């Protein structure tokens, strides 16, 4: 396919990997933030191509993985109501809360539907005025504009039976949380390209300066990832730490200003709990007071309350890049995609699920 094949071309991918080997003189640990990038890395076995000095660790950028269990429990509570049509992106339906997942609610007769856009959920609300339509608004800055648009349109069109269960998270505070942890071993970041398509990359500049860490805005195809790694290693080897853009075909410095305005119109920055990691200040988005009538937590009285994962899941350490999936004793044995102990084993963007599905091995072992 045009505009994609060239980023999966074996010869150019290998040539770029060769250039990375050429400039690498010592060990570096680099984190790709986004789950989509983790998926590409593991699906295509990108790390097989890298010199052994470079370790890629997988970041917290999987929305399904970091949505706290208590929020999924709330989703289950709301979705179980007979007056509710509960809409979600596909991946979220399989994620376990503390006891069960949304698939189980559907099996018990709950009206749980997979939609591909929050605006489709809004259409459902307009067509089913006698029922409450709730959309599970998860994701990073990438999904925030469309979710904001749904609420904005709901108010404009006076659709009162629509609401959002919001669990939006933001990338920069997560990067800061990782960097300020005493266990941190990440020396450079591949920032999530699509997040930067929306937000631009100015907000990463203070982080790069304060923590002395290179941050390279990176795309999602094999060549994109290697390009990001190449630019990151170049900086590390040269002792520089600035923000660079390796994904120029999609990302501009200022991002998508219209989308940012829409996010600010509907959402404000709030504290958020990240599954497996805990509370991170100013790390999420919640509905502004002007739009609070569209907040499903309030509408259905499920606000507050916490629940904890009690299992042996170490997804928190994995999401912070401290451990790799196969270092978990439960990986592939007590924890599989069919019986996940934690969310990182559920989503195809989750590091554990990606490892489980595409676990690489060197060709001599096969």
């Amino acid at each position, binding site marked *: *396919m045009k505009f994609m094949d060239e980023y*999966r*071309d*074996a010869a150019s*991918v*290998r040539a770029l990997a060769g250039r990375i080997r050429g400039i690498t003189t010592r060990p570096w640990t680099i984190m790709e933030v986004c789950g*989509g990038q983790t*998926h590409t890395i*593991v*699906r*295509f*076995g*990108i790390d*097989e*191509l890298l010199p052994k000095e470079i370790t890629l660790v997988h970041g917290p950028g999987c*929305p*399904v993985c970091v949505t706290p269990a208590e929020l999924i429990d709330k989703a289950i509570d709301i979705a179980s109501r007979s007056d509710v049509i509960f809409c979600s*992106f*596909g*991946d*979220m339906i*399989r994620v376990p809360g503390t006891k069960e997942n949304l*698939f*189980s609610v*559907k*099996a*018990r007769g709950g009206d749980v*539907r*997979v939609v*591909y*856009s929050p605006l*489709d959920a809004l*259409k459902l609300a307009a067509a089913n005025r006698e029922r409450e339509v709730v959309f599970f608004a*998860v*994701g*990073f800055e*990438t*999904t925030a504009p469309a979710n904001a648009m749904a609420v904005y349109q709901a108010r404009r069109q006076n659709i009162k039976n629509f609401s959002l269960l919001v669990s939006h998270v933001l990338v920069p505070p997560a990067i800061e949380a990782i960097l300020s942890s005493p266990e941190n071993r990440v020396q450079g970041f591949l920032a999530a390209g*699509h997040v930067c398509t929306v937000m631009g990359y100015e907000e990463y500049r203070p982080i790069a300066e304060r923590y002395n860490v290179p941050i390279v805005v990176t795309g999602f195809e*094999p060549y994109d990832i290697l390009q990001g790694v190449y630019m990151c290693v170049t900086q590390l080897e040269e002792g520089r730490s600035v923000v660079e853009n390796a994904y120029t075909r999609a990302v501009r410095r200022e991002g998508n200003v219209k989308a940012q305005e829409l996010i600010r119109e509907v959402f404000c920055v709030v504290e958020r709990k990240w599954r497996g990691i805990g509370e991170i200040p100013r790390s999420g988005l919640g509905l502004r007071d002007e739009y609070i009538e569209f907040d499903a937590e309030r509408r259905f009285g499920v606000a507050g309350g916490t629940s904890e994962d009690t299992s042996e899941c170490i997804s928190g350490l994995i999401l912070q890049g401290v451990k790799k999936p*196969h270092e978990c004793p439960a990986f*592939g*044995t007590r924890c*599989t*995609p*069919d*019986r996940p102990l934690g969310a990182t084993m559920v*989503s*195809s*963007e989750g590091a554990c699920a990606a490892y*489980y*599905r*595409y*676990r*690489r*091995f*060197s*060709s001599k*072992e*096969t």
Partner: protein
Amino acid sequence: MADESNERKKFVLSCPIPITEYPRIVLGHGGGGTLSHALIEKMFVPSFKNPFLDARHDGAVFEIGGRKVAFTTDSYVVRPIFFPGGDIGTLAVNGTVNDLVMCGARPLFISAGLVLEEGLPMETLWRIVQSMKNSAEAAGVAIVTGDTKVVDKGKGDLIFINTSGVGVIEGDHSIAPKNVRPGDVVLINGDIGRHGMAVMSQREGLEFDAAIQSDCAPLAEIVLKLLATGVEVHCLRDLTRGGLASAVVEIAGTAGVQIDLDESAIPVSGSVRAACEFLGLDPIYVANEGRFIAIVAAKDAGRAVEALRSHPLGAEARPIGTVSDRRAGLVTLRTTIGTQAIVDMLSGEQLPRIC
């Protein structure tokens, strides 16, 4: 790494917990992935245990009066019931015809059980019945017995169809997963992913304007033509629910062989690829209704490809992988960038990614 992988495989085969932790049936149990598989392996096979089921084939093969006969059944539930390139009627006939063909049989007779939802427009039923008639004629089978039931409105999804089929195996072909041998070559008859994406393009909330037609087609003619050439065919499998990946993983497991696929060789049309990219789906897991793999002896691979290509449904036929005895049950994919990845069955249906 080797030990880890074996450990995982062992776990999958001998999990002590029945089915999984779902106390009720969820949609994933019908997705053709590991959840479906668990139902079959942990509930159905042990309960109904017999050598025919143990063969893990698309149908049962047995002898009646000295003739080798194949027998199969399948139920069809699809939404929407009309989609680009076919409808539930064409599926119900071709699907069962193809399951017989995959046993190496010439399909002869099929049955049709219709479960109709109260309120189904008569005009809709008529269109479906005409599709069944036309598909049966095209496939050379007769619909010789049937049944109709009506359920209350809201208790069905307009129409469900079950078809069973009987066919005869001519000659002494023995076509089954257990016959796959190290050294064999895996052939495919055409590009993958059309049916799944055609149906998905019509689903509520996803009205993308893709010109993707289902590949739904009867495979009797092309397969019988292949068998008639006398090439050594060890296994045939149509790539329905769960797609190419699930079919190959299943066969590798049953045959106790390793199968290595070459991603660059697997044909995928531009529009299917674009739609899959857009939704975050992998075409090797997307359903087909007119595609199959033939696993043949290496010495005959060239002739087999030629035979397939001489039929319109095999115009794009080609080798996509090889069989070895390196690690039982393992399936790998040589990616487009030349690295190797493991191919596994999905848990249930593929779900679109979030971003």
